[in-house]
């Protein structure tokens, strides 16, 4: 039976990108590849935002997608919660129907 796959999505402040990537890359056993992309956050609290963010009315965020076996997903979330106890990092998990490579 094929392994059940989940997609973990993390939305974090842009300045945490390097930190997050390092932690994820350093996890044991090693994770498969993942994707990051800069995105903008909307409708958030602007208390800690920089002037630029206030001007543009959106907050600089980084989005991480990890497609992992179901049992690994929670391990990642737990590790991150331990090392980066930041309320500004939002995560959710979605099911992945199927996954493969073209060749």
């Amino acid at each position, binding site marked *: 039976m094929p392994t059940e796959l989940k997609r973990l999505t993390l939305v974090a*402040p842009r*300045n*945490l990108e*390097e*930190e997050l990537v*390092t932690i994820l*890359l*350093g*996890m*044991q056993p*090693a994770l498969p590849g993942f994707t990051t992309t800069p995105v903008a956050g909307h409708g958030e609290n602007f*208390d*800690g935002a*920089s*002037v*630029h963010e206030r001007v543009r009315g959106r907050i600089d965020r980084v989005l991480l997608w990890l497609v992992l076996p179901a049992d690994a997903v929670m391990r990642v979330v737990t590790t991150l919660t331990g*090392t*980066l*106890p*930041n*309320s*500004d*990092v939002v995560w959710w998990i979605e099911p992945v129907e199927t996954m493969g490579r073209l060749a």
Partner: protein
Amino acid sequence: MLHRLIAFSLAQRLLILVAALGLIVAGVWAFLRLPIDAYPDIAPTQVKLILKAPGMTPEEVENRVVVPLEMELLGIPKAVMLRSTAKYAIADITLDFAEGTDIYWARQQVSERYAGVAGDLPGGVSGGLAPISTPLSDMFMFTIEGGGLSLAERRTLLDWTIRPALRTIPGVADLNALGGEVHSFLVTPNRAQLSAAGLHFRDVADAIERNNRNDGSGRLRDGDSALIVRAAGAIATLDDLRQVVVTVRDGVAVRVGDVAKVSYGALTRYGAVTRDGEGEAVEGLVVGLRGADASQTVAAVQQRLTELQRSLPAGVRIETFYDRSSLIKRAVSTVQDALVEASVLVVILLLLFLGDVRAAVVVSVTLPLAVLFTFLLMHVAGMSANLMSLGGLAIAIGMLVDAAVVVVENTVSRLAPHAGDTAELPKLYRVYRATREVAAPVTAGIVIIVLVFMPLLSLQGLEGKLFAPVAITIVFALAASLLLSLTVIPVLCSLMLRESAHRDPWLMRQIERGYRPMLDWSLAHGRTMGVLAAVGLVLGAAAYFHTGKTFMPTMDEGDMLMQLVKPASISLDASRDLDLKIERAVKAKLPEVEHIVARLGSDELGLDPMGLNETDMFLELKPRAQWRKPNTAWLEEQLRDVMKAFPEVEFGFTQPIQMRVSEMLTGSRGDIAVKVFGPDLSVLNSLANQVASILERTTGSQDVLAQTQEGMRYLGVQIDRQAAGRYGLDVSAVQDELRAQLEGSQAGTVIERQRRIPIVVRGAEQIAAAPELFGQISVARGDGGAVPLESLASLKPTSGPVQVRRENASRFALVQANVSGRDLVGFVDEARAAVERDVHLPSGYRISWGGQFENQQRAAGRLGLVVPIALGMIFLVLFFTFGAVREAVLILCNVPFALVGGVVALWLSGQYLSVPASVGFIALLGIAVLNGLVLVSFFNQLLATGMALPEVVREGALRRLRPVLMTASITALGLVPLLFASGPGSEVQRPLAVVVIGGLVTSTALTLLLLPVLFRRFCAR
């Protein structure tokens, strides 16, 4: 943008390495081409007019030469100051132009105005614009010795063999000839015979001038060829001169030989040079062009002199007694030694802190690269390597590695694999990330240090010219180090550092062990820390008020000059004999003095027109190792003792360049120059004497000198117009006759072997030496026969001015003094209060205080204005970096604490608060801010990970302990060699080093202990 630069460098490693190699080559090339001098070019745009008015009294010179010229010269655009001095037979007019005015343009203006008024000046006034020179122009001085030559022969050798040879050297403006006797044809009319023939001196001179010419007349045709007709009539020998017919009386020709004695003689002398108490000498002084490379010029002069040696008469030697290149060598080697020592210290420190040879090597690569880069930039900017610019580099040496230290330190930590970590993240990425993490704070820090040095560029006057090169070099060096840290250093890190487990070296472990409890204590006792900090501030304020303020420490040039002022009416011979006597006394008492060369009176070019009573005595000293006590102050004391035997001579000490600098900038010599302005010379004189006596009473005064305007003995010849008229004479005829009698008048030149030898018509020597005979000389009557002078005029001894000094067309008297053993500003405040209390100025009179003191006030005023602006700019940079006012303010809080350490160190070391000390404070400001920046930006990074605030400050401070300590201790240790250096220039760098080292102690303590407390208290978001 920064991360793109880092990424590009790491992606193009080969390119970066090749570029670094190219930089090395270009840097070495630039260094070899940098002009080397002892000091930066400190000359303002200044134009000097020197006019000779033979025989004229100072007041005549003032009224007939200076005033008309001043009227014309005042109002030249961009001229800021017009100073003039009227002395016996010399008018010296100096115009200072606004900073940045082109010297050639300025000379053109003065030249045009001078041409406009030249026609109105009395006949016989000669001279014009002095050569373009600076205080650094006197590059090379020598005397001509040996060979048994007479003074006239030596002078001829100098004038006609050596001078033309040296003048062709690029960089030499002129060769100033001093002392000796200018060979001339002397016609001494016999007064009785002359009067009997009804002739005046003028007639003899005119006849000679009319009868002394070779000329061409044109061509004659002689068949097919042409003959060029040459009419010879030039005087070539003494006999030719004797045969000149002056007039024909009753059909008999009266020849020069009939009424005058014709012989070889000398021009009237206005000065003399003596050497080693042995007798007179002839001195040559090489005047360098503005902007010339001193070391190259001096080397060329030396080479030319060696070449000339062969063509000199047997036994003749050229003895050098001043050679700028030796000062340059010592100045440059002082800085070089400091640079090398600092570099060694820095490398040792890096090893101790990093415990990793490879890391230490990577960081230390920054040093030579940044230094070479700086040379390249200096070359491009057209700067010269000198005491100040190289000093700037020596000061910056510790700061140069700061950026690289932060980058490498972070990379070392980042490259250490975590326990059990097998994730294969590329090494390049890790280096990139480590560099990128610190790139922003490092850049902001360096930009801030650069910003704080900007105020120095706004300094004006002497301090601006001296310290701008310091600031520019530091800015160049730091900019270079920043660029290298973000390009070459990451590349080298990626190539050289290993991805191995990194263990803190022993030193760091010990320091951390000590620091941890201290940090915990201060975090637990926030209030107590606040109180301690406040106490520190109060202590700093107290130290500030107890520290004396002065302009600048005196730089030891290694040579000494004694300036002598003798009684105003002294004759040339007596003045010379007195000089010889003093030289013998000094030589006998002080074995430290190798040679003494003294020059009195005026030089030939008129660059330094002194009176007959003034002497500059140049002491060539043996190397310090041979002194009984290697201390300049001690030697001065010994000289003072020697001078006690000559109570009639006033004296002061200075150094060759120092003397020229003070003359050029204030027109006077000495730390303090008090000028009393007003119209009447005798009132000025008495006021000046009162001021001088007050200065003498003030503690700390030394060598107080009132340059008295009055006191010269005169013989007043009041011509009776009626009597003169009765004898068919007019006033000017009598005056001309008297001048020709004593001063002599020039009657053309004889060209002898390409040498132009003047013909002088002058009265007999006996009359010039005996005032009683002077009254009896006979003057030819207009209607035939002769009349004694006494019948034409009344002769009465009087007294009159020695000289008349003027500034912006107002007369003034000058009092100058040096200050020793106390600070300049305190001395001036005290003396000024006493003068205001005790000296009552009549209306129309005013007093101004100048000299070094003026520079200090100006520098303090300017810094007081610009430093706050720089602080504002720092605040802006911090605000841009953090995007928050609170953090920016917090980091700026570092500044006062850094200053506390600096002030206290200054106070404890007994140094004064001077301009170089202020430069130290400025540097300190930058370093303190950089440290705070490194720490606070890391706190922010930790906060972003969601760490709790108490943890953030504790962890952050511990993790940033190493870079903070490293940057501070490396900067401080880099300056340690300057504390102990003793060569020329070290006096300027020492207060700076004291301030920075002292300030770093307090500012680092504050950064590590108080800043975490403050961050926890104020920056919690």
